């Protein structure tokens, strides 16, 4: 049995410990804000925080997540400064990648409160947006961080 915290709530999981956290969140907890895009750690759509750090939930097994604290997009509750900046800049187009983008950016801001362009590139290059919202993502991160565009 695996025990973990998801958005502050303790959960127990009896199934296959090799199941990726992604499918546990989506299919077992019905928290579908975390998205599937590649299943191979290539796109970032499934990004969540495990013990405060951005990870790809498609590459994190339930066994890896045991005893850890997981935060998903739902866990930000719309209160994160990035979410407000995302609203103000109307970042999303189709929106499918955006949960992952926001979770990745939230982790970046924990590490670098005032990120440089190079740090933004470095942190965000694992998150694909096929609609091409990268410019607005960059400026929304800067707005949330209070750095000049």
């Amino acid at each position: 049995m695996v025990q973990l915290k998801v958005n502050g709530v303790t959960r127990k999981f009896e199934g296959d410990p090799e199941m990726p956290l992604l499918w546990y969140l989506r299919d077992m907890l019905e928290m579908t804000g975390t998205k599937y895009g590649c299943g191979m750690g290539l796109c970032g759509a499934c990004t969540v925080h495990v013990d405060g750090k951005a990870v790809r939930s498609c590459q994190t097994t339930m066994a890896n997540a045991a005893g850890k604290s997981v935060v998903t997009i739902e866990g930000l509750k719309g209160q994160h400064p990035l979410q407000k900046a995302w609203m103000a800049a109307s970042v999303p187009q189709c929106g499918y990648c955006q949960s992952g983008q926001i979770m990745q950016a939230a982790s970046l801001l924990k590490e670098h409160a005032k990120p440089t362009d190079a740090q933004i590139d470095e942190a965000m290059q694992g998150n694909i947006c096929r609609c091409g919202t990268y410019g607005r993502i960059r400026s929304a991160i800067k707005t949330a961080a209070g750095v000049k565009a």
Partner: protein
Amino acid sequence: MSTIKVMERRAFLKYTFGAGALILGTHVESWASDADKAAFHPDVFVGIQPTGEVIIVAHRSEMGTGSKSTLPMVVADELDADWKRVRVEQAIGDEKYGSQNTDGSCSIRDFVAIMKIAGATARTMLETAAAQKWNVPAGECKAQLGFIVHAKSGKKLGFGELAAAAAKLPVPDKATLKFKPESEYRYINKNVPNVDQLDIIEGRGTFGMDAKMPGMLVASIEHSPVYGGKMASFDAAEAKKVAGVRDVIVLDPFKPPHNFQPLGGVAVLADHTWAALQGRKKLKVEWDLGPNASYDSDRYREQLLATAKQPGKVVRNQGDVEAGFASAAKIHEASYSTPLLSHAPMETPAAVAEFKDGKVVCHAATQNPQAVQETVAGALGIDKKDVTCHVTLLGGGFGRKSKPDYVAEAALLSKKTGKPVKVVWSREDDIRNDFYHSTAGMYMKAGLDASGKPTTWLHRSAFPSIGTTFDDKAEYAMELEMGMGWNDLPYDIPNHRAENGPAKNHIRIGWLRAVANVYHAFAIHSFTDELAHLAGKDPIEYTLGLLGPGRKIEMKPVGMNYWNHNQKQSDFPVDTARMRNVIDLVAQKSGWAKRKASKGHGWGFAAHRSFLTYVAVVTEVQVDDRGRLTIPNMHIAVDAGQTYNRDRVISQFEGAATFGTSIAMMSEISVKDGKVQQSNFHNYQVARMPEAPRNTHIHLINSKELAAGVGEPGVPPVPPSIANAIFAATGKRVRDLPMRKTKLV
């Protein structure tokens, strides 16, 4: 909005009221939209509840363009509704709404007038109802943010309070309607956020991948690795041992032509997605690969290039091309080629369906819910009226999701299992079994006068046609493919010919964002740049010379109709004045005149009309000493006619800059032994943040012309603008996409 339709709606309305409550008899009506069921619904697109809530139906799919919000905003503006009290309801598939096929960049241009009529009709009827109640002239009553107000007396009633009375009035003739002046718009072009934006940002938006039905199974389907292959045998023993796997079911192969039919294959059904994916890995399937097992896309591309060197079917002919070449001072020729491409929307195809009592209900990420009705009905042998398709948000579409094979798979599997079934395509399924953007080979030849200006132009193009979707024997292009930036090139050249060479097809070909414009624009605008350099002229000056003076040109291709993106040439002529305008604008905004190339640093230009919109691009590239390319700036000037949601228009062109960069630099589907070689984002590459243009500057012309396309027309000029910038920076002319395959230093 004919009188007949209005009569029918009135009859329906009476019936609804006669029934008192909203108990509707038939299956279709039981799925009637909330707008239809409202106390007052003068139109299929709008309904008003006694509470004052305004329900506006969005009948087009939302895949990122904003049309689900923009069209309802137009209704709300004409009605003068309070946007806070508007609920936008996504329509099910139903022909009563007209076309719901959300592709071709036409949601706004085809429906904005209808939305204005819907809003103005409702407003007029509410004003009339108020006037009758107060016994004052209707002209003195005015809608204001959800109320009807009589200024003279200060009387005021909410829309909800007037709904029942308005419902009893005759629907006014649309010729008598008065429309709001632009100056009174509250929502149009005011950058109101999309209705789903907050949900998306908080992780609550429901995409096809997120849709569910109680008791559903999740299916992962093994399709033939080669187009047209058939399952020979399979062994499901190991798959069935996976915990959670419930069943393994064979789906019959399609019958050619493939149309939107499911491909056929072997489905693993399980309690949840992970079990289905695990079971699928354990499945052993032997395929009879069929006649396409020798298809090799590299060899095929060579053949297309060879075909394009030979005379083909003439699709445009002006002047005397032979004589023109014979008398030219100089001849320049070049060949260009482009690969197959996959749409790769971030959300892979996904849908859930339930077959019960001979009817299907499904929830799907689809660009075309009426095609879902037809395709599902065809696959199951039922009437399309018995297919109810709910449309979710789409995690990108780009043309892939107008073809509902995956929805029919879900319906078929539900019929076979007696349970609701959700079909989930993995990224590998998506990349390997797409309807690919066509590969193309193009040959260009110009006869030049002494000044370097062409007097003669020949453009031959060969590519497998989208027409093979509907006719597997087709070898020549459809009119719509020819009319996409190829036989409608508005250059002022006396001798001009376009020819189409034959191409047999070996894979599913489909439309991808901007379609045939993409490869034609790449060849034409790269070649134009080559000619400018040969003549020693500035590429923008040179292009303006080719376009000639500003004028409207009537296109007369040979042996076909000029498609003009489905619009009359009288409404949307090919207008070189508008093209010159966007070129002037992009030159000015990018500081083109001062931009001098230096080693590893250059600027490139291209301008293209597609989807009735005029777009000019200037791109800056930097190529470092290891040949790595970055794009610091891209300027895009646009005349898309009148806009209705300026910020969403801008965002579409920002997106096109990145989408076009992927096509130019990175993406390629290759096929060996009939099998697609790519499978996921490590080998099917698309632009990530560092590769995308760092700064995209969109310059919108404040146009009063009719609204034209927005979602697609930004894409075609981007790849040639990059190729031309690379030439300026490095002296290398890259004629084959993707450009990452050419060493730049």
